[in-house]
C-alpha cells in the first residue's frame, strides 16, 4: 500500500513524533542562513532551497563533544568518567534532509567503525530517524550523480519523501518511501501519514535530466594514484586562503581535534571539528610540518576524498552537495578541480 503525506500534515507528524519522545530537527531560517535546528512549528521549516547552509552532520558528529570528564581531589587522586549520554542518545527526528546530506553520515560510518567503534557517532546514528526529501531542483554547484549519489537517492535515509507538484509547480504532497525498518516503524508510530498515492506524479524527472555526470571517480582515482607529484598541484589551488569553510560545511568531512578544557581540578576532554586546511592540523610540536603549504593541504583534501577513502572503504568521501563551491570565498570549486583531473586522466598519454 502506497503512503503519502501532505505538507499540511507536517505539524501533525512533528507533534506525534514529539509525543513519541523525539526531538524534531529541520531546516529553519536563522538570520540570513538556513540551519538544521530544533523546530516547534511546521511553518518554520524551509524546504524550498537547494540545500541548507550547513549539513545535518552535526547531529551525528557533534561540532563539540565532551568525551571524558575528570576531576582531581585535594589529595591529587584523579577520577574519570564518561560524559552523560542523555544528549547523545536522545531520539531525534531529522526532517527535510536532501539525499546528499543523508548519505554523508553513512559514508562517515565506515571510518567511525574502522576496527573499533566511535560510540558517540554510532549512538547518535542509532537514535535518529532521517526523513529525506528528494530534490526537484539543482544548481550549477550540484554534482551528486558524478559521485554515485542521486537526487532521489535513499542512502542514509530511513524514509524518503518524493515531492509531487501541483498545477502551480508548488510542492504540497509527497510520496512516502520507507527505506529502513526503523523508518517503517517510525511511520507506524507517528501520525500525519496517509494511505494512497499523491494526486500527482513525482516531480524529480527534470532535475535528473539536469544533473549530468561531470566526471568518473574511478578515472579520477587512477590519475591520483600516480599524480601525487604532478605539477598540477603547484598552481591549481594557489587561490585557496586556507579557511576551513569547505570542510566544515561538507557532509562527509569528519576530521576532529581532541583537547582538554578546564583546569587542574576538573574539566572535560572534548572532541571538536577540525579541518585539514588549517596549517596547524599536522604541525608537530617540534615545528616540523609534513603538509606545510596550502597547496599540499588542498591536495590532501582531494586525495583523501577521491583516493585514500575509496581505497580503504570502497566509497568516495563526497556526496556531491556542492557546498564547497557555493560557500568558497574565492570560488575555488572542488568539483571543477576534480573535473579538471578527470580531463587530465582522459587525455592521451604523451600530450
Amino acid at each position, binding site marked *: 500500500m502506497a503512503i503519502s503525506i501532505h505538507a499540511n500534515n507536517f505539524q501533525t507528524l512533528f507533534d506525534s513524533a514529539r509525543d513519541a*519522545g523525539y526531538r524534531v530537527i529541520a531546516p529553519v531560517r536563522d538570520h540570513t542562513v538556513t540551519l538544521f535546528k530544533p523546530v516547534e512549528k511546521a511553518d518554520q521549516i524551509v524546504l524550498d532551497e537547494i540545500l541548507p547552509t550547513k549539513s545535518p552532520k552535526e547531529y551525528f558528529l557533534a561540532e563539540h563533544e565532551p568525551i571524558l570528564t575528570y576531576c*582531581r581531589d585535594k589529595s591529587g587522586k584523579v577520577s574519570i568518567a564518561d560524559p552523560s549520554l542523555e544528549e547523545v542518545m536522545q531520539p531525534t527526528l531529522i526532517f527535510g534532509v536532501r539525499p546528499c546530506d543523508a548519505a554523508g553520515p553513512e559514508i562517515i560510518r565506515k571510518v567511525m567503525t574502522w*576496527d573499533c567503534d566511535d560510540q558517540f557517532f554510532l549512538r547518535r546514528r542509532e537514535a535518529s530517524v532521517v526523513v529525506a526529501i528528494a530534490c526537484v531542483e539543482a544548481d550549477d554547484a550540484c554534482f551528486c550523480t558524478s559521485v554515485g549519489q542521486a537526487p532521489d537517492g535513499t542512502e542514509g535515509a530511513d524514509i524518503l519523501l518524493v515531492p509531487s507538484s501541483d498545477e502551480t509547480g508548488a510542492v504540497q504532497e509527497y510520496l512516502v518511501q520507507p527505506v529502513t525498518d526503523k523508518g517503517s*516503524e517510525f511511520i507506524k508510530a507517528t501520525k500525519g501519514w496517509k494511505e494512497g498515492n499523491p494526486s500527482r506524479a513525482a516531480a524529480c524527472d527534470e532535475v535528473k535530466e539536469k544533473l549530468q555526470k561531470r566526471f568518473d571517480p574511478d578515472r579520477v582515482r587512477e590519475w591520483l594514484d600516480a599524480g601525487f607529484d604532478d605539477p598540477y598541484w603547484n598552481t591549481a589551488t594557489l587561490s585557496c586562503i586556507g579557511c576551513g569553510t569547505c570542510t566544515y560545511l561538507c557532509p562527509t568531512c569528519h576530521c576532529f581535534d581532541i583537547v582538554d578544557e578546564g583546569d587542574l581540578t576538573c*574539566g572535560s576532554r572534548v572532541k571538536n571539528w577540525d579541518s585539514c586546511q588549517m596549517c596547524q592540523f599536522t604541525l608537530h610540536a617540534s615545528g616540523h610540518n*609534513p603538509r606545510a603549504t596550502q597547496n599540499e593541504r588542498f591536495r590532501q583534501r582531494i586525495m583523501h576524498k577521491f583516493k*585514500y577513502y575509496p581505497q580503504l572503504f570502497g566509497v568516495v568521501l563526497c556526496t556531491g552537495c556542492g557546498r564547497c563551491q557555493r560557500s568558497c570565498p574565492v570560488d575555488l570549486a572542488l568539483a571543477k578541480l576534480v573535473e579538471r583531473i578527470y580531463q587530465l586522466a582522459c587525455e592521451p598519454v604523451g600530450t
Partner: protein
Amino acid sequence: MEDTNLQSTTAVLDNIYRPSLMKLDRVTWETPDTTTFRFLFMDDSERRQFFSQYKVGQFGEYSTFGHGESPFCVASPPTRQEYIECTFRAVGRNTKAMQGLNEGDTVGFRGPYGNWFPIEDWKGKNILFIAGGIALPPLRAVIWNVLDRRSEFADVKIIYGARTVSDLVYKNELYEWEKRNDVDLVQTVDPGGETPDWKGRIGFVPTVLDQAAPSHENTIALVCGPPIMIKFTFPVLDKLGFSRQQVYTTLENRMKCGLGKCGRCNVGGTYVCKDGPVFRWDTLAQLPPEY
C-alpha cells in the same frame, strides 16, 4: 513508537577515547629536558589486557588531565609485565605538564596502538640497532626484548649517537650494555659535543656506521633518528649491502585519536597510527614525503 531502548540513558558506553588510569611510579631524568616515566596500571585487569596485546614498537596516548594527550612509543619491552615506560622530551603543552608531575601522580594512558616490529621473524638473525638522540626509546624496547630473550638471536650490535654527551639518554643502560659481552655497543657524539673524558667515538651516526661496517648477512637493521640522520643513514646501509627488506624504521606524525579516525597522521593513504609507526624501508620508499 514505543522503543524503550532509545529512552535508556543508563547504558554503558564502550568509550574508545577513555584512558586507563596509571600511577607515575618512577621519574628518571635522562637529559635536562628529557625524562623517562615508569607507570603502573591502577587496575590490574587493564594491565593484563594491555600485555595480552602489546608487542614491541607499538605506541600509546599519554595524558595529563587538563593538558591533553600526546602519542609516544612504549619504551619498555613486553617481557617486563609489571609496568610500562616512556621517554619523552618536553616540547608541547602536555609533555611540559607531564614533566611537572611527581611520583605518585595520576596520568591517563590509551593503547597499545599501531603495528610492531616483527621480531618473531628475526629469530636466529643478527640485529643491528642504529639510533640518534631522543629516538633511542622506540628501539630500547626492542633491545631489551631481544636481550631478555638473548639466546634466540645471533649477534646484537647497537650504534647510538647524540649531539653531545649530555644528550645521550639511558646512560645507566648504555653502561650496562657496554659491559655485557653479548652486546656490541658503539657510542658516538657529534664533533664538538664531546667532553674531555669521553671514551666513545666522535662523528655523525652515518659516518660511524660506515666505519663500523657491519655485515648485512643474515642481519636486520633498525634505524630511528631525526629525519636528517635517516636520510644519510639509508645510503650507507645500501652501500653495506643491506636490501630494503632488511631495514626497519618508525615514523611520527601528529595524532589525536591514535585510532584512525581523526584524520591527520596519514602519509599518503597510509595511516601512521594504524599501518605504522613501524615501516620497512621498501614500504617507506613508496610513501609520498608527507612525514
